[in-house]
């Protein structure tokens, strides 16, 4: 096992930075999720650790050693590709065994190791099959087995669940978490799915446009997003974001379209002399209430089983989502409603850079 670190790592494609001065450390045995939208540079960062991309600037360290000039095969990391990258002409057993053949391990031991790993992932019955004869979930497990069999210093996983259906994804998510906990291998996991990130990662590193936005434990990112991007990206639906004005610096209420929201002490104290403000409220911190301070019209009501999402329009173009229990009375589309934000639930960001000024947490 080993820790992995980026030190000012930068990678440009045709002059445009895909990863821009990334500073990030993954502790030994940690499962760190690189999260972000398509094109944010998370896969490029992962590929730099694998040695499949060479950084234009900065350093990549594995186990405290700079590996910029080390060949991929000598980095002792295993990668699970989004496409699984199974060799189509080899059966499952040969696929899993493939990395061991180059290590001078004798055939008997190789076979034993392959069977042990296959057993741990429930692949014993499939060893003679070719990849085309497997389901998506089975292929995914074979790809994992091929990574595990080498006992590498770090696992690199590039959206390994994105080709699975929702039910299988949930199951496999739990399997990977359990496996990582059992093996204790440092894991860098790339995904654009914030649910995967929240449920799997010891820590999450959110990236956008090649730049690291925030890194921390899932609940920290959710409760105290460093900026508007993180606030919007985490959570389903993401945080409601409303342009706001203050009557005077340090005011305890922010005016927004359709009314006002309470800032709480943390929020009010942080506004300072900011010229323009944006406030954010999670949908679960809003409620429909006749005494609410926001006036809105219901645009859409979505029943999701246990929850209901009510999409409302405030004045102007501002929209927000209220999450309420399915057992609560449901408004009809077009109804005029009033919304209340829980005290101490409103996050405050600058209007210019989107950086967090204050709020709960």
């Amino acid at each position, binding site marked *: 096992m080993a820790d992995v670190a980026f030190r000012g790592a930068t990678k440009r494609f045709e002059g445009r930075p895909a990863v821009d001065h990334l500073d990030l450390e993954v502790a030994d045995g940690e499962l760190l999720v690189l999260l972000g939208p398509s094109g944010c540079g998370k896969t490029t960062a992962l590929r730099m650790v*694998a*040695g*499949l991309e060479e950084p234009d600037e900065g350093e990549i360290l594995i186990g405290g050693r700079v590996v910029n000039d080390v060949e*991929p095969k000598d980095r002792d990391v295993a*990668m699970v590709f989004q496409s699984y*990258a199974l060799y*189509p002409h080899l059966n499952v057993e040969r696929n899993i065994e493939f*990395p061991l053949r*180059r290590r001078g391990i004798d055939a008997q031991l190789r076979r034993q190791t392959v069977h042990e790993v296959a057993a741990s992932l429930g692949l014993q019955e499939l060893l003679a099959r070719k990849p085309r004869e497997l389901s998506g979930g089975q292929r995914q497990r074979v790809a994992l087995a091929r990574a595990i069999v080498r006992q590498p210093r770090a696992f690199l996983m590039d959206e390994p669940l994105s080709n699975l259906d929702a039910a299988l994804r949930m199951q496999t998510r739990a399997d990977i978490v359990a496996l990582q906990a059992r093996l204790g291998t440092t894991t860098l996991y790339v995904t654009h799915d914030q649910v995967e990130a929240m449920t799997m990662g010891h820590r999450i590193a959110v990236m956008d446009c090649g730049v690291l936005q925030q890194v921390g434990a899932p609940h920290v990112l959710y409760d105290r997003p460093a900026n508007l991007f993180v606030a919007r990206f985490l959570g389903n639906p993401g945080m409601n974001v409303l342009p706001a004005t203050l009557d005077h610096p340090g005011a305890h209420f922010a005016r927004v379209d359709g009314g006002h929201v309470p800032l709480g002490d943390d929020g009010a104290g942080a506004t300072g002399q900011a010229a323009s403000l944006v406030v954010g409220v999670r949908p679960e911190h809003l409620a429909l209430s006749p005494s609410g301070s926001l006036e809105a019209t219901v645009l859409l009501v979505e029943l999701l089983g246990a929850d209901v999402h009510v999409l409302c329009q405030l004045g102007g173009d501002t929209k927000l989502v209220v999450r309420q229990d399915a057992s609560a009375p449901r408004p009809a589309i077009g109804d005029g409603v009033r919304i209340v934000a829980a005290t101490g639930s409103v996050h405050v960001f600058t209007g210019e850079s989107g950086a967090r000024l204050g709020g709960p947490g």
Partner: protein
Amino acid sequence: MQPDSRNASGERRSRRGSRRRWRLTARYALLTIGAVVVLAPLYLTFVSSLLPPSALAERPPPFFPLDPQWHDYAVAWSQGDLGVYLRNSAIQTGIIVCGQLVTSVLAGYAFAFLRFPLRRALFVVFLATLMIPFEVTLVTNTQTISELGWYNTFAGLTVPFLATGVGTFLLRQAFLQIPRDLREAASLDGYGHLRFLLRIAVPLARPALAALGVFSFLAAWNQYLWPLVVTGSGNGVRTVQIGLKLLQGTEVSRTDVALAGTVIAVLPLLVLLVVCQKQLVRSLTAGAVK
């Protein structure tokens, strides 16, 4: 369901079934005509090789030999030295096929997977060689072979054909079908380019390799002009196509014997096509059907 609508749907089904039968019949009729057009010359050659000389001049020629002259084959084999010529052709063809497979695999892989300066320009040069007819280079190649002292040797017969633009193009396209992820996964697993080529890329490009093998076998086996130019008298390295031509100029100058020799010479090609037809079809239809 009402009886009327049941009847209507039954009628529709029966109309569809009859349309399908007609389409199938038409398709088979077309395929049969195509097969007859392709196979007729082979069959006529075979039949003619078994006819007595007197019957060869008959018009129309007999479609079935009532008194097959099998001994013509023995005459062609022994007096025409076909055994030696066939051996020479086998050696020449073997060297050319192996050479083309090796050079095409290496060059195709380089163009598909390696990054090097002028890669695109070099590939265009490779493709450009496809536009130059062999006859244009005949004189220069003959001079080169003579100066190298390769006249009347297998080296002279084969070396100019060891690399081919078609083969390189074919293999490059086949290698480009291999997902880049496989190369990257293999590189993380400790496999360099050569090992990846041998263990992953070549097995995955088998249909293209088979197609190239068959095409280069056909081309090499049927060569006439080049072996004629770079080989001298005697049958030291002369190939079977020249042997067939010589068969008509010797004391056994008989059309029926020459035809028997032709059938013998064409047999290896037929065997190859039958053995490789599955791979060949797969290669030709690769990418055509998803």
